[in-house]
């Protein structure tokens, strides 16, 4: 059986890739995808910790991850909706040119 450290390593890598994407890419959709990656890294961690935790027989970790995936899906939907509305407004998805939050 793969030791816990292996899962954690993969999750950290996934998180780093997601973070890098979210920070570097200018396209709003790609930033959203990066964020999704980070979320999934977190989910992977949750499952791993549950499976190697003191009570692997209970389904708590699984439930937690499923909830998290559901919330992520909803968030992605909202995020995409926002991006579309911003696009309609600004005719671009380049985040560097969208600075209306500056107040």
């Amino acid at each position: 059986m793969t030791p816990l450290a292996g899962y954690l390593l993969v999750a950290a890598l996934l998180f780093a890739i997601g973070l890098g994407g979210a920070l570097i890419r200018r396209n709003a959709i790609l930033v959203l995808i990066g964020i999704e990656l980070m979320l999934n890294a977190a989910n992977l961690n949750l499952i791993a910790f549950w499976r190697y935790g003191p009570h692997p027989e209970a389904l708590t970790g699984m439930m937690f991850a499923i909830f998290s995936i559901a919330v992520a899906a909803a968030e992605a939907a909202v995020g995409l909706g926002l991006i579309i509305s911003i696009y309609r407004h600004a005719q671009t998805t380049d985040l560097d040119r969208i600075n209306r939050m500056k107040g």
Partner: protein
Amino acid sequence: MLIQEGAAAAFHPQIAGPASFAVRNLWLVPAVPIVAAGVIALLKQPRRKLSAGLAIGSLGFSMLLAFVAFAHVAAGWASGVAVRETVNFTWIQAGTASVALGWVLDPLSAVMLVMVTFVGLLIFIYSTGYMAHDENFTRFFCFLSLFAGAMLGLVISNSILLLFMCWELVGLTSYLLIGFWYHKPSAAAAAKKAFMTTRVGDVLFLLGMVWLFAQTGTLLFYNNGAGSMEGWALGGLISAHAGLGLTAAGAIGLLIFAGAVGKSGQFPLHVWLPDAMEGPTPVSALIHAATMVAAGVYLVARVYPLMQAGAAANGTTTALIVITWIGSITAVFAALIAIAQNDIKRILAYSTVSQLGYMMAGLGIGGVAVGMFHLITHAFFKSLLFLGAGSVIHGCHEEQDVRHMGGLKAYMPWTFATYAIAMLALCGFPLLFSGFWSKDAILESAKGWEISKGPYYLLVFGAVLTAFYMTRQVSYVFFGKWRGHHPAHESPRVMVLPMAILALFAVLLGLIGTPAWPWFRSFLEGHGAEANLSVFGEPAFLMLLGTSCIVVFLGIGIAWWLYGNRSPAAEEPDALEKAVPLVWAGLRDRLYVDEFYDVTVIAFYRAWARVANWLDRRVWGGIVAGVALAFRGLAHLDRLIDESWVNGGFDKGCEELSTGGGLLARMQTGRVQTYLRLLALAFVVLAAILIWSSRP
């Protein structure tokens, strides 16, 4: 001797013991005229008849009650009882001490009541004629009624406080009536002078009163043995010492006497009385001859037990000696000035001052009866003189200078006849006139005074002067030729009638006080009187009679020799002026007493007023201004510091804050990724910290 007393009760006069009808209702005597005055005050000016009627009616009612009271006392006296009935009540309570008021009916107050109401009523009637054409007729009767009420209240007071209150009220009415013709500046000034001069005495009287109250714990004169004029209180007053070798009784007595000096125009506070002649003549007759000025004498008589308390073997006390000397000096001093006056009323005014001096001396030497007898007789003949003078002034069209009169006996026979009677009574013309008997009693007791013969000689000299100035006045006014401009006329009947009645009494009153039948003295002193005609044959009496005759005829004779039937022109210098011009000038100018006060008391008053004002504006105000200035200086200093340091530092701080704000603001780019970067950075830092802190 049996003394009847009423007892003190709380608040409402409750009568305990044998209080008679007369004493129970005695308060009505002053109350009715005062109420009448209040009603008249509310009447409109044109209600002349009603106001005069109210005034006369109320005083008439008071007179009837006064007669009832007098009859009650006289009946008591006749049956061998010395009546002294009181009604006392608590006015206010201070601590446990009560401030009590009350009234007393005894021979002294009874005699005074009858005199005041009777003379007052006659003068009221006279006034309806004298003031008939005055536009303020109703106001005049309002003031007169108020005066009568206050004076009667003064007479019946059994409480020194009530007496003082009435005392001030008569002062007020005197002020109002002297200044009755207020549009004349001289009248307004004279009114103020009268009030102020008497008030000098009054504040001393006030001190004497509060001292007496504090020392004895009571304000009442007579209160079943607990009053201040009764044994227990007097004993305490004698044993308490007040410094300067005086007992408390002596010191209080002198303070009270100071009040009497002011009111009765005694030297050195006599200056107001001659000026008071600015008032209408009936006022001069009533207030400044018969009643109010005599209130000082009455006051001394009322507190005589206090004055006499602790008498030495020679029967006298310091207070009485002072009274005697002040009285004697006043008698001569005023008589001297009267010689050189030309205003008919001023002569009479100085004569009043002089006669009041006689009364005071009589009280000081001979006791209550002697002083009071002269007070009563004087009230009649002096008010008659004033009414006569008023009649003359009226008849001569408001002329008051005797040099512009003359020969009036032909024009005004009634006035002349009554005036002559009063004048002879004042001079003390032997045997026939009341003034002779009352003045003789004073001279007789002065002659027997053990302390000094000075007063006797002064009073005798004063009697010569009296005869002299009255003869001078009468010969100027009634004898010789008419020197006026318009022909004089006799006064209306309503004025002559009261004069005639007064003249009758100016003669008859002597009968009640002759040495042969000294009814007046025995009535006041509460013992029986026996007629004893043989007194007239005694050498002591004859000797006195002789002296009196010499004195009177000397005065009249010299004056007649100088002035009689001469009718000098008005501009011509006076006969005496030709003889002794310097002395004459001094006397004419009233011996410079007014001038002396002007340069001392009044100048001092003005100077101190200025000093007080200066202190206020410069010193006290200056200190405040200085403090204000100092504060203002501090404020300026503060501003300086503010502007240079404090403000500078503050501004710097503000600038830095805004710079910092700008830096922070620059971070808000509005770009989502900037925020995200920050978040990531924060995440890394947080993770680092967590890892760092969780290391073993």
